[in-house]
Protein backbone atom coordinates (compact mmCIF):
# COMPACT_ATOMS: atom_id res chain seq x y z
CA UNK A 1 0.00 0.00 0.00
CA UNK A 2 1.37 3.35 -0.97
CA UNK A 3 1.76 6.27 1.38
CA UNK A 4 -1.06 8.02 -0.42
CA UNK A 5 -3.44 5.13 0.21
CA UNK A 6 -2.27 4.81 3.78
CA UNK A 7 -3.24 8.40 4.30
CA UNK A 8 -6.78 7.60 3.19
CA UNK A 9 -6.60 8.97 -0.29
CA UNK A 10 -8.17 7.20 -3.26
CA UNK A 11 -5.99 4.55 -4.99
CA UNK A 12 -4.04 5.71 -7.94
CA UNK A 13 -6.08 4.78 -11.00
CA UNK A 14 -4.52 2.85 -13.83
CA UNK A 15 -3.95 5.29 -16.53
CA UNK A 16 -5.51 4.97 -19.92
CA UNK A 17 -2.06 4.90 -21.44
CA UNK A 18 -0.87 1.94 -19.36
CA UNK A 19 -4.07 -0.06 -20.06
CA UNK A 20 -3.66 0.52 -23.71
CA UNK A 21 -0.06 -0.62 -23.52
CA UNK A 22 -1.12 -3.86 -21.85
CA UNK A 23 -3.73 -4.47 -24.49
CA UNK A 24 -1.22 -3.86 -27.21
CA UNK A 25 1.01 -6.58 -25.84
CA UNK A 26 -0.62 -9.85 -26.67
CA UNK A 27 0.25 -11.70 -23.54
CA UNK A 28 -2.19 -14.47 -24.14
CA UNK A 29 -0.75 -15.62 -27.46
CA UNK A 30 2.77 -15.12 -26.23
CA UNK A 31 2.10 -17.39 -23.24
CA UNK A 32 0.47 -20.04 -25.40
CA UNK A 33 3.31 -19.99 -27.88
CA UNK A 34 5.95 -20.42 -25.20
CA UNK A 35 3.92 -23.16 -23.53
CA UNK A 36 3.32 -25.11 -26.76
CA UNK A 37 6.96 -24.94 -27.78
CA UNK A 38 8.30 -25.98 -24.39
CA UNK A 39 5.72 -28.77 -24.06
CA UNK A 40 6.53 -30.03 -27.53
CA UNK A 41 10.18 -30.21 -26.50
CA UNK A 42 9.76 -31.53 -22.94
CA UNK A 43 7.24 -34.30 -23.61
CA UNK A 44 9.22 -36.22 -26.26
CA UNK A 45 12.42 -35.63 -24.27
CA UNK A 46 10.85 -37.22 -21.22
CA UNK A 47 9.13 -40.04 -23.06
CA UNK A 48 12.09 -41.17 -25.14
CA UNK A 49 15.00 -40.37 -22.80
CA UNK A 50 13.68 -40.79 -19.26
CA UNK A 51 10.64 -42.97 -19.96
CA UNK A 52 12.47 -46.26 -20.56
CA UNK A 53 14.18 -45.86 -17.19
CA UNK A 54 11.08 -45.09 -15.20
CA UNK A 55 10.00 -47.50 -12.45
CA UNK A 56 9.09 -50.28 -12.11
CA UNK A 57 11.00 -51.31 -15.23
CA UNK A 58 10.11 -53.97 -17.74
CA UNK A 59 10.85 -57.23 -15.94
CA UNK A 60 7.28 -58.44 -16.50
CA UNK A 61 4.42 -57.49 -18.76
CA UNK A 62 2.54 -55.86 -15.91
CA UNK A 63 5.64 -53.93 -14.82
CA UNK A 64 6.06 -52.69 -18.38
CA UNK A 65 2.40 -51.74 -18.39
CA UNK A 66 2.84 -49.79 -15.17
CA UNK A 67 5.86 -48.03 -16.63
CA UNK A 68 3.86 -47.10 -19.73
CA UNK A 69 1.03 -45.78 -17.55
CA UNK A 70 3.48 -43.75 -15.52
CA UNK A 71 4.99 -42.26 -18.66
CA UNK A 72 1.58 -41.37 -20.10
CA UNK A 73 0.65 -39.66 -16.84
CA UNK A 74 3.90 -37.71 -16.94
CA UNK A 75 3.36 -36.73 -20.58
CA UNK A 76 -0.04 -35.36 -19.55
CA UNK A 77 1.31 -33.71 -16.42
CA UNK A 78 4.33 -31.99 -17.95
CA UNK A 79 2.26 -29.48 -20.04
CA UNK A 80 0.17 -28.70 -16.94
CA UNK A 81 3.29 -28.12 -14.85
CA UNK A 82 4.78 -25.99 -17.63
CA UNK A 83 1.58 -23.95 -17.96
CA UNK A 84 1.68 -23.05 -14.28
CA UNK A 85 5.41 -22.37 -14.17
CA UNK A 86 5.46 -20.37 -17.41
CA UNK A 87 2.53 -18.25 -16.30
CA UNK A 88 4.11 -17.59 -12.90
CA UNK A 89 7.47 -16.71 -14.41
CA UNK A 90 5.88 -14.52 -17.08
CA UNK A 91 3.76 -12.73 -14.49
CA UNK A 92 6.76 -12.16 -12.25
CA UNK A 93 8.73 -10.63 -15.08
CA UNK A 94 6.03 -8.75 -16.99
CA UNK A 95 3.66 -7.54 -14.31
CA UNK A 96 6.02 -6.94 -11.44
CA UNK A 97 5.55 -3.65 -9.61
CA UNK A 98 8.18 -1.10 -10.49
CA UNK A 99 9.61 1.37 -8.01
CA UNK A 100 7.61 4.62 -8.01
CA UNK A 101 5.04 3.20 -10.39
CA UNK A 102 1.31 2.89 -9.82
CA UNK A 103 -0.16 0.20 -7.57
CA UNK A 104 -0.73 -2.84 -9.81
CA UNK A 105 -4.07 -3.89 -8.31
CA UNK A 106 -6.84 -1.92 -9.85
CA UNK A 107 -9.02 -1.69 -12.87
CA UNK A 108 -10.69 -4.38 -14.97
CA UNK A 109 -7.44 -6.34 -15.44
CA UNK A 110 -7.53 -7.36 -11.79
CA UNK A 111 -10.92 -9.05 -12.15
CA UNK A 112 -11.58 -12.64 -13.15
CA UNK A 113 -11.51 -13.62 -16.80
CA UNK A 114 -14.48 -15.79 -17.69
CA UNK A 115 -12.85 -17.24 -20.76
CA UNK A 116 -9.76 -18.31 -18.85
CA UNK A 117 -11.84 -19.81 -16.04
CA UNK A 118 -14.09 -21.78 -18.36
CA UNK A 119 -11.14 -22.86 -20.44
CA UNK A 120 -9.24 -24.05 -17.38
CA UNK A 121 -12.24 -26.01 -16.05
CA UNK A 122 -12.98 -27.59 -19.45
CA UNK A 123 -9.34 -28.44 -20.04
CA UNK A 124 -8.95 -29.95 -16.53
CA UNK A 125 -12.18 -31.94 -16.87
CA UNK A 126 -11.23 -33.36 -20.24
CA UNK A 127 -7.77 -34.27 -18.97
CA UNK A 128 -9.03 -35.90 -15.77
CA UNK A 129 -11.78 -37.82 -17.58
CA UNK A 130 -9.27 -39.05 -20.14
CA UNK A 131 -6.97 -40.21 -17.35
CA UNK A 132 -9.92 -41.89 -15.62
CA UNK A 133 -10.78 -43.84 -18.75
CA UNK A 134 -7.17 -44.58 -19.54
CA UNK A 135 -6.44 -45.72 -15.97
CA UNK A 136 -9.51 -47.95 -15.89
CA UNK A 137 -8.60 -49.57 -19.18
CA UNK A 138 -5.00 -50.07 -18.10
CA UNK A 139 -6.13 -51.60 -14.80
CA UNK A 140 -7.98 -54.43 -16.48
CA UNK A 141 -5.28 -55.26 -18.98
CA UNK A 142 -3.08 -57.13 -18.90
CA UNK A 143 -4.81 -59.48 -16.48
CA UNK A 144 -5.44 -57.06 -13.65
CA UNK A 145 -2.20 -55.14 -14.12
CA UNK A 146 -0.39 -57.10 -11.43
CA UNK A 147 -2.82 -56.25 -8.67
CA UNK A 148 -4.53 -58.78 -6.44
CA UNK A 149 -7.83 -59.74 -8.08
CA UNK A 150 -9.29 -61.66 -5.19
CA UNK A 151 -10.07 -65.34 -5.04
CA UNK A 152 -11.97 -65.43 -8.34
CA UNK A 153 -10.06 -63.31 -10.85
CA UNK A 154 -12.07 -61.74 -13.62
CA UNK A 155 -9.13 -60.99 -15.85
CA UNK A 156 -7.21 -64.18 -16.42
CA UNK A 157 -4.29 -64.71 -18.78
CA UNK A 158 -4.72 -66.48 -22.07
CA UNK A 159 -1.58 -68.55 -21.59
CA UNK A 160 -2.16 -72.27 -21.24
CA UNK A 161 0.99 -72.84 -19.20
CA UNK A 162 0.75 -70.96 -15.93
CA UNK A 163 3.14 -71.56 -13.05
CA UNK A 164 1.32 -71.28 -9.71
CA UNK A 165 3.32 -70.01 -6.76
CA UNK A 166 1.81 -69.57 -3.34
CA UNK A 167 2.95 -66.57 -1.33
CA UNK A 168 2.44 -67.03 2.41
CA UNK A 169 2.77 -63.96 4.62
CA UNK A 170 3.46 -64.33 8.30
CA UNK A 171 4.95 -62.10 10.94
CA UNK A 172 7.53 -61.25 9.73
CA UNK A 173 8.53 -62.93 6.52
CA UNK A 174 7.22 -64.32 3.26
CA UNK A 175 7.55 -67.94 2.29
CA UNK A 176 6.75 -69.49 -1.07
CA UNK A 177 5.19 -72.83 -1.97
CA UNK A 178 5.56 -74.46 -5.38
CA UNK A 179 2.59 -76.84 -5.77
CA UNK A 180 3.81 -78.19 -9.11
CA UNK A 181 7.07 -79.29 -7.53
CA UNK A 182 5.76 -81.39 -4.69
CA UNK A 183 4.56 -78.40 -2.68
CA UNK A 184 7.89 -77.53 -1.13
CA UNK A 185 8.01 -74.28 0.85
CA UNK A 186 11.03 -72.01 0.87
CA UNK A 187 12.22 -68.52 1.74
CA UNK A 188 13.44 -68.04 -1.83
CA UNK A 189 11.29 -66.69 -4.64
CA UNK A 190 12.70 -67.88 -7.96
CA UNK A 191 10.67 -67.64 -11.16
CA UNK A 192 11.40 -68.65 -14.75
CA UNK A 193 11.60 -66.19 -17.62
CA UNK A 194 8.98 -65.93 -20.35
CA UNK A 195 6.42 -67.60 -18.13
CA UNK A 196 3.05 -66.52 -16.79
CA UNK A 197 3.03 -66.72 -13.01
CA UNK A 198 -0.08 -67.02 -10.90
CA UNK A 199 0.66 -65.71 -7.42
CA UNK A 200 -1.74 -67.10 -4.83
CA UNK A 201 -1.27 -64.77 -1.89
CA UNK A 202 -2.46 -65.54 1.62
CA UNK A 203 -1.45 -64.99 5.24
CA UNK A 204 -1.16 -67.05 8.38
CA UNK A 205 -1.77 -64.22 10.82
CA UNK A 206 -2.38 -60.52 10.24
CA UNK A 207 -2.76 -58.63 6.97
CA UNK A 208 0.40 -58.30 4.92
CA UNK A 209 0.90 -57.13 1.37
CA UNK A 210 3.09 -58.92 -1.15
CA UNK A 211 4.84 -56.24 -3.15
CA UNK A 212 7.31 -57.48 -5.75
CA UNK A 213 8.10 -54.04 -7.01
CA UNK A 214 10.16 -54.82 -10.09
CA UNK A 215 7.66 -57.50 -11.12
CA UNK A 216 4.86 -54.94 -10.98
CA UNK A 217 2.92 -57.20 -8.61
CA UNK A 218 1.21 -56.05 -5.45
CA UNK A 219 -1.43 -58.09 -3.67
CA UNK A 220 -2.72 -58.00 -0.11
CA UNK A 221 -2.09 -61.12 1.94
CA UNK A 222 -5.17 -61.71 4.04
CA UNK A 223 -5.58 -64.60 6.48
CA UNK A 224 -7.93 -67.31 5.30
CA UNK A 225 -8.23 -65.73 1.86
CA UNK A 226 -6.57 -66.39 -1.50
CA UNK A 227 -5.69 -63.27 -3.44
CA UNK A 228 -4.62 -63.98 -7.02
CA UNK A 229 -2.29 -61.83 -9.12
CA UNK A 230 -0.73 -62.54 -12.51
CA UNK A 231 2.48 -61.51 -14.20
CA UNK A 232 4.39 -62.76 -17.21
CA UNK A 233 8.14 -62.55 -16.88
CA UNK A 234 10.13 -61.17 -19.78
CA UNK A 235 13.52 -60.18 -18.38
CA UNK A 236 16.17 -61.89 -16.29
CA UNK A 237 17.35 -60.27 -13.08
CA UNK A 238 16.83 -59.89 -9.37
CA UNK A 239 14.00 -58.12 -7.59
CA UNK A 240 12.98 -57.15 -4.10
CA UNK A 241 9.90 -58.32 -2.26
CA UNK A 242 8.59 -56.10 0.52
CA UNK A 243 5.60 -56.14 2.79
CA UNK A 244 3.51 -53.07 1.99
CA UNK A 245 1.09 -53.33 4.91
CA UNK A 246 2.14 -52.19 8.37
CA UNK A 247 2.10 -55.51 10.20
CA UNK A 248 3.97 -55.10 13.47
CA UNK A 249 7.36 -54.32 14.96
CA UNK A 250 9.48 -56.00 12.30
CA UNK A 251 7.35 -54.91 9.35
CA UNK A 252 10.22 -52.80 8.07
CA UNK A 253 12.46 -55.85 8.02
CA UNK A 254 9.95 -58.01 6.17
CA UNK A 255 11.62 -58.19 2.80
CA UNK A 256 13.68 -60.54 0.73
CA UNK A 257 15.07 -60.74 -2.75
CA UNK A 258 14.00 -62.93 -5.63
CA UNK A 259 15.24 -63.73 -9.11
CA UNK A 260 13.96 -64.27 -12.62
CA UNK A 261 16.15 -66.96 -14.18
CA UNK A 262 16.10 -68.94 -17.39
CA UNK A 263 13.67 -71.83 -17.66
CA UNK A 264 16.53 -74.31 -17.50
CA UNK A 265 17.99 -72.68 -14.40
CA UNK A 266 14.58 -72.57 -12.79
CA UNK A 267 13.93 -76.21 -13.54
CA UNK A 268 17.28 -77.20 -12.02
CA UNK A 269 16.72 -75.01 -8.95
CA UNK A 270 13.17 -76.25 -8.40
CA UNK A 271 14.06 -79.92 -8.67
CA UNK A 272 17.13 -79.51 -6.46
CA UNK A 273 15.15 -77.57 -3.85
CA UNK A 274 12.33 -80.08 -3.98
CA UNK A 275 14.85 -82.82 -3.26
CA UNK A 276 16.73 -80.83 -0.61
CA UNK A 277 13.58 -79.92 1.32
CA UNK A 278 11.78 -83.24 0.88
CA UNK A 279 11.98 -84.16 4.57
CA UNK A 280 10.36 -80.94 5.67
CA UNK A 281 7.89 -80.96 2.77
CA UNK A 282 6.60 -84.29 4.04
CA UNK A 283 5.72 -82.55 7.31
CA UNK A 284 3.89 -79.63 5.70
CA UNK A 285 0.13 -79.69 5.38
CA UNK A 286 -1.19 -80.63 1.94
CA UNK A 287 -1.14 -77.72 -0.45
CA UNK A 288 -4.24 -75.57 -0.13
CA UNK A 289 -5.09 -72.07 -1.23
CA UNK A 290 -5.62 -70.98 2.37
CA UNK A 291 -4.74 -72.35 5.77
CA UNK A 292 -6.48 -71.96 9.06
CA UNK A 293 -4.23 -70.99 11.90
CA UNK A 294 -5.79 -70.03 15.18
CA UNK A 295 -5.01 -67.07 17.37
CA UNK A 296 -3.83 -68.99 20.37
CA UNK A 297 -0.23 -67.88 20.39
CA UNK A 298 2.40 -70.57 20.28
CA UNK A 299 -0.14 -73.27 19.67
CA UNK A 300 -1.35 -71.54 16.55
CA UNK A 301 -0.65 -74.53 14.43
CA UNK A 302 -0.54 -74.48 10.66
CA UNK A 303 -3.27 -77.08 10.85
CA UNK A 304 -6.65 -76.74 12.45
CA UNK A 305 -5.24 -78.41 15.52
CA UNK A 306 -8.43 -79.38 17.30
CA UNK A 307 -6.62 -78.63 20.54
CA UNK A 308 -7.57 -75.62 22.57
CA UNK A 309 -5.19 -75.18 25.46
CA UNK A 310 -5.43 -71.41 25.81
CA UNK A 311 -8.65 -69.86 24.66
CA UNK A 312 -12.03 -70.80 23.33
CA UNK A 313 -12.81 -67.30 22.21
CA UNK A 314 -9.77 -66.15 20.27
CA UNK A 315 -9.99 -68.71 17.53
CA UNK A 316 -9.54 -67.30 14.11
CA UNK A 317 -10.92 -68.40 10.80
CA UNK A 318 -12.92 -71.47 9.98
CA UNK A 319 -14.25 -73.79 12.68
CA UNK A 320 -11.47 -76.02 13.86
CA UNK A 321 -12.81 -79.40 13.03
CA UNK A 322 -10.43 -82.27 12.80
CA UNK A 323 -8.68 -82.89 9.54
CA UNK A 324 -5.77 -81.89 7.44
CA UNK A 325 -5.28 -78.18 7.03
Amino acid at each position, binding site marked *: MSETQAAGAAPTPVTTESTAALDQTNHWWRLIAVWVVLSAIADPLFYYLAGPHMPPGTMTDVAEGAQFDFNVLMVCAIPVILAVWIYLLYALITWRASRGGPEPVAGPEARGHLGVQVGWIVFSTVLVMFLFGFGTYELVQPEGAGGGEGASPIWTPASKTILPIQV*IGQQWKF*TYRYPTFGGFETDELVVPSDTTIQFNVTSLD*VIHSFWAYQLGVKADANPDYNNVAYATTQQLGSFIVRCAELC*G*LWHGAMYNSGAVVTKQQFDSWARLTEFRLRK*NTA*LLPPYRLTYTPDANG*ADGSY*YPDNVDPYSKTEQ*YGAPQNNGAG
Partner: protein
Amino acid sequence: MAWKVTVTAVLFAICAAAAVILIVSLLGTPPVVSYSSSAPGQSVNVTLQSVGSYGSPPHPTWVSYLVRSPQGQWVHTTVFQVPEHTRINFTIYNYDSGSPLRNQQIGQVTGTYGNVATLNGKPFRVVNSNAGNGVAHTFSIPSLGVSVPLYANNGNANLCAAAPCTLKSPVQVIRFSITSPGPGDYRWQCFVPCGLGFLFGNGGPMSTLGYMGGFMKVVA
Protein backbone atom coordinates in the same frame (compact mmCIF):
# COMPACT_ATOMS: atom_id res chain seq x y z
CA MET B 1 -4.74 -15.59 39.47
CA ALA B 2 -1.19 -16.36 40.48
CA TRP B 3 -2.11 -19.75 41.86
CA LYS B 4 -3.77 -20.72 38.57
CA VAL B 5 -0.60 -19.90 36.70
CA THR B 6 1.42 -21.87 39.24
CA VAL B 7 -0.86 -24.93 39.00
CA THR B 8 -0.82 -24.79 35.21
CA ALA B 9 2.96 -24.50 35.16
CA VAL B 10 3.37 -27.41 37.57
CA LEU B 11 0.97 -29.61 35.59
CA PHE B 12 2.76 -28.72 32.39
CA ALA B 13 6.10 -29.56 33.96
CA ILE B 14 4.79 -32.92 35.17
CA CYS B 15 3.40 -33.78 31.73
CA ALA B 16 6.62 -32.73 30.03
CA ALA B 17 8.69 -34.81 32.44
CA ALA B 18 6.43 -37.82 31.89
CA ALA B 19 6.75 -37.42 28.14
CA VAL B 20 10.54 -37.22 28.37
CA ILE B 21 10.69 -40.31 30.60
CA LEU B 22 8.41 -42.21 28.22
CA ILE B 23 10.44 -41.26 25.16
CA VAL B 24 13.73 -42.11 26.86
CA SER B 25 12.37 -45.48 27.99
CA LEU B 26 11.11 -46.23 24.47
CA LEU B 27 14.44 -45.29 22.96
CA GLY B 28 16.34 -47.39 25.44
CA THR B 29 18.06 -50.48 24.07
CA PRO B 30 19.22 -53.57 25.92
CA PRO B 31 22.88 -53.82 26.89
CA VAL B 32 25.38 -55.23 24.40
CA VAL B 33 27.35 -58.36 25.22
CA SER B 34 30.61 -58.18 23.34
CA TYR B 35 32.51 -61.23 22.15
CA SER B 36 35.92 -61.12 20.57
CA SER B 37 38.23 -63.83 19.35
CA SER B 38 41.37 -64.39 21.38
CA ALA B 39 43.46 -64.46 18.21
CA PRO B 40 42.80 -63.51 14.57
CA GLY B 41 40.97 -66.26 12.76
CA GLN B 42 39.93 -68.05 15.93
CA SER B 43 36.30 -68.89 16.39
CA VAL B 44 34.00 -67.19 18.88
CA ASN B 45 31.59 -68.99 21.18
CA VAL B 46 28.21 -67.35 21.76
CA THR B 47 25.90 -68.80 24.41
CA LEU B 48 22.21 -68.03 24.84
CA GLN B 49 19.33 -69.46 26.78
CA SER B 50 15.59 -69.29 26.14
CA VAL B 51 13.22 -69.38 29.06
CA GLY B 52 9.44 -69.67 29.25
CA SER B 53 9.12 -66.82 31.71
CA TYR B 54 11.79 -64.29 32.55
CA GLY B 55 10.62 -64.14 36.17
CA SER B 56 11.56 -60.55 36.98
CA PRO B 57 10.01 -57.14 36.42
CA PRO B 58 8.90 -55.44 34.30
CA HIS B 59 7.47 -58.48 32.52
CA PRO B 60 8.04 -61.55 34.69
CA THR B 61 5.69 -63.75 32.63
CA TRP B 62 7.21 -62.96 29.28
CA VAL B 63 9.20 -65.53 27.39
CA SER B 64 12.75 -64.38 26.80
CA TYR B 65 16.24 -65.02 25.52
CA LEU B 66 19.33 -64.26 27.62
CA VAL B 67 22.95 -63.97 26.54
CA ARG B 68 25.90 -65.22 28.55
CA SER B 69 28.79 -62.80 28.67
CA PRO B 70 32.37 -63.96 28.06
CA GLN B 71 32.79 -63.65 31.85
CA GLY B 72 30.05 -66.22 32.38
CA GLN B 73 27.31 -63.88 33.58
CA TRP B 74 23.81 -64.24 32.16
CA VAL B 75 22.65 -60.89 30.83
CA HIS B 76 19.04 -60.08 30.02
CA THR B 77 19.63 -58.83 26.51
CA THR B 78 19.30 -59.90 22.90
CA VAL B 79 22.06 -57.73 21.52
CA PHE B 80 25.53 -59.18 21.17
CA GLN B 81 28.62 -58.22 19.24
CA VAL B 82 30.96 -60.50 17.30
CA PRO B 83 33.95 -59.94 14.99
CA GLU B 84 33.52 -60.03 11.20
CA HIS B 85 34.30 -63.02 9.00
CA THR B 86 34.72 -65.31 11.95
CA ARG B 87 33.29 -68.69 12.75
CA ILE B 88 30.66 -68.21 15.43
CA ASN B 89 29.78 -71.29 17.47
CA PHE B 90 26.35 -70.93 19.02
CA THR B 91 25.14 -72.86 22.01
CA ILE B 92 21.51 -72.35 23.00
CA TYR B 93 20.07 -73.81 26.17
CA ASN B 94 16.33 -74.08 25.71
CA TYR B 95 14.39 -74.34 28.97
CA ASP B 96 10.95 -73.76 27.46
CA SER B 97 8.15 -76.06 26.34
CA GLY B 98 6.73 -76.00 22.84
CA SER B 99 3.96 -76.89 20.45
CA PRO B 100 3.30 -77.68 16.80
CA LEU B 101 4.44 -74.90 14.53
CA ARG B 102 2.05 -72.56 12.82
CA ASN B 103 4.29 -73.05 9.80
CA GLN B 104 6.43 -76.18 9.70
CA GLN B 105 8.65 -74.38 7.16
CA ILE B 106 10.61 -72.96 10.10
CA GLY B 107 11.12 -76.46 11.49
CA GLN B 108 14.25 -76.91 9.39
CA VAL B 109 17.84 -75.85 9.90
CA THR B 110 19.17 -73.41 7.32
CA GLY B 111 22.21 -71.21 6.91
CA THR B 112 24.49 -73.03 9.35
CA TYR B 113 27.62 -75.01 8.54
CA GLY B 114 26.30 -77.95 6.55
CA ASN B 115 22.72 -76.80 7.17
CA VAL B 116 22.88 -78.88 10.31
CA ALA B 117 22.68 -78.35 14.06
CA THR B 118 22.98 -80.70 17.00
CA LEU B 119 20.37 -81.45 19.62
CA ASN B 120 21.96 -82.73 22.82
CA GLY B 121 24.93 -83.80 20.72
CA LYS B 122 22.92 -85.47 17.97
CA PRO B 123 22.89 -83.82 14.52
CA PHE B 124 19.56 -82.86 12.97
CA ARG B 125 18.27 -80.91 9.98
CA VAL B 126 14.52 -80.95 10.57
CA VAL B 127 12.30 -81.04 13.64
CA ASN B 128 8.84 -82.53 13.20
CA SER B 129 6.92 -80.08 15.30
CA ASN B 130 3.83 -82.28 15.31
CA ALA B 131 5.64 -85.01 17.14
CA GLY B 132 7.34 -85.24 20.51
CA ASN B 133 7.56 -82.01 22.46
CA GLY B 134 7.24 -79.79 19.40
CA VAL B 135 9.28 -76.66 18.82
CA ALA B 136 9.74 -73.97 21.45
CA HIS B 137 11.45 -71.22 19.49
CA THR B 138 13.73 -70.52 16.58
CA PHE B 139 16.95 -68.60 16.38
CA SER B 140 16.77 -66.89 13.01
CA ILE B 141 18.82 -64.24 11.24
CA PRO B 142 16.70 -63.64 8.13
CA SER B 143 19.19 -61.55 6.18
CA LEU B 144 21.78 -64.34 6.47
CA GLY B 145 19.32 -67.14 5.80
CA VAL B 146 20.05 -68.60 9.23
CA SER B 147 17.24 -70.39 11.04
CA VAL B 148 17.48 -73.08 13.69
CA PRO B 149 14.45 -74.57 15.47
CA LEU B 150 14.83 -75.20 19.19
CA TYR B 151 13.36 -78.51 20.20
CA ALA B 152 11.08 -78.11 23.22
CA ASN B 153 10.96 -79.64 26.66
CA ASN B 154 8.02 -81.68 27.85
CA GLY B 155 5.40 -79.20 29.02
CA ASN B 156 4.49 -81.46 31.92
CA ALA B 157 8.02 -81.45 33.32
CA ASN B 158 9.06 -79.20 36.18
CA LEU B 159 10.34 -76.44 33.93
CA CYS B 160 12.45 -73.50 35.02
CA ALA B 161 10.15 -70.58 35.86
CA ALA B 162 12.61 -67.72 36.28
CA ALA B 163 15.80 -66.76 34.52
CA PRO B 164 18.62 -67.38 34.57
CA CYS B 165 17.94 -71.09 34.46
CA THR B 166 20.54 -73.70 35.27
CA LEU B 167 21.25 -77.18 34.01
CA LYS B 168 19.32 -78.56 37.00
CA SER B 169 16.11 -77.79 35.09
CA PRO B 170 14.97 -79.76 32.04
CA VAL B 171 16.91 -78.41 29.09
CA GLN B 172 17.59 -79.03 25.41
CA VAL B 173 21.03 -78.03 24.18
CA ILE B 174 21.24 -76.91 20.56
CA ARG B 175 24.57 -76.14 18.92
CA PHE B 176 25.40 -74.85 15.45
CA SER B 177 27.96 -72.65 13.71
CA ILE B 178 27.84 -69.85 11.19
CA THR B 179 30.38 -67.50 9.66
CA SER B 180 29.85 -63.88 10.59
CA PRO B 181 29.45 -61.53 7.61
CA GLY B 182 30.89 -58.05 7.16
CA PRO B 183 30.29 -55.28 9.67
CA GLY B 184 26.72 -54.29 10.35
CA ASP B 185 23.71 -54.88 12.58
CA TYR B 186 21.93 -58.11 11.74
CA ARG B 187 18.44 -58.57 13.14
CA TRP B 188 17.72 -61.91 14.69
CA GLN B 189 14.49 -63.13 16.19
CA CYS B 190 12.33 -66.07 17.12
CA PHE B 191 9.78 -66.91 14.44
CA VAL B 192 7.58 -69.06 16.64
CA PRO B 193 4.61 -66.94 17.70
CA CYS B 194 5.36 -67.50 21.37
CA GLY B 195 3.92 -64.35 22.92
CA LEU B 196 1.16 -66.03 24.85
CA GLY B 197 -1.85 -63.85 25.52
CA PHE B 198 -1.15 -61.64 22.51
CA LEU B 199 -3.11 -61.87 19.29
CA PHE B 200 -1.46 -64.39 16.99
CA GLY B 201 1.30 -64.67 19.58
CA ASN B 202 3.44 -61.98 18.02
CA GLY B 203 2.96 -59.12 20.44
CA GLY B 204 4.58 -58.47 23.82
CA PRO B 205 7.92 -60.29 24.05
CA MET B 206 7.90 -60.99 20.30
CA SER B 207 7.76 -57.28 19.64
CA THR B 208 10.13 -56.04 22.31
CA LEU B 209 13.88 -55.80 22.02
CA GLY B 210 15.57 -57.73 24.79
CA TYR B 211 13.08 -60.61 24.81
CA MET B 212 12.57 -62.61 21.61
CA GLY B 213 14.42 -60.53 19.09
CA GLY B 214 17.55 -58.46 18.89
CA PHE B 215 20.64 -57.73 16.89
CA MET B 216 23.89 -59.44 16.14
CA LYS B 217 26.31 -56.56 15.81
CA VAL B 218 29.25 -57.46 13.61
CA VAL B 219 32.33 -55.27 13.91
CA ALA B 220 35.63 -55.13 12.06
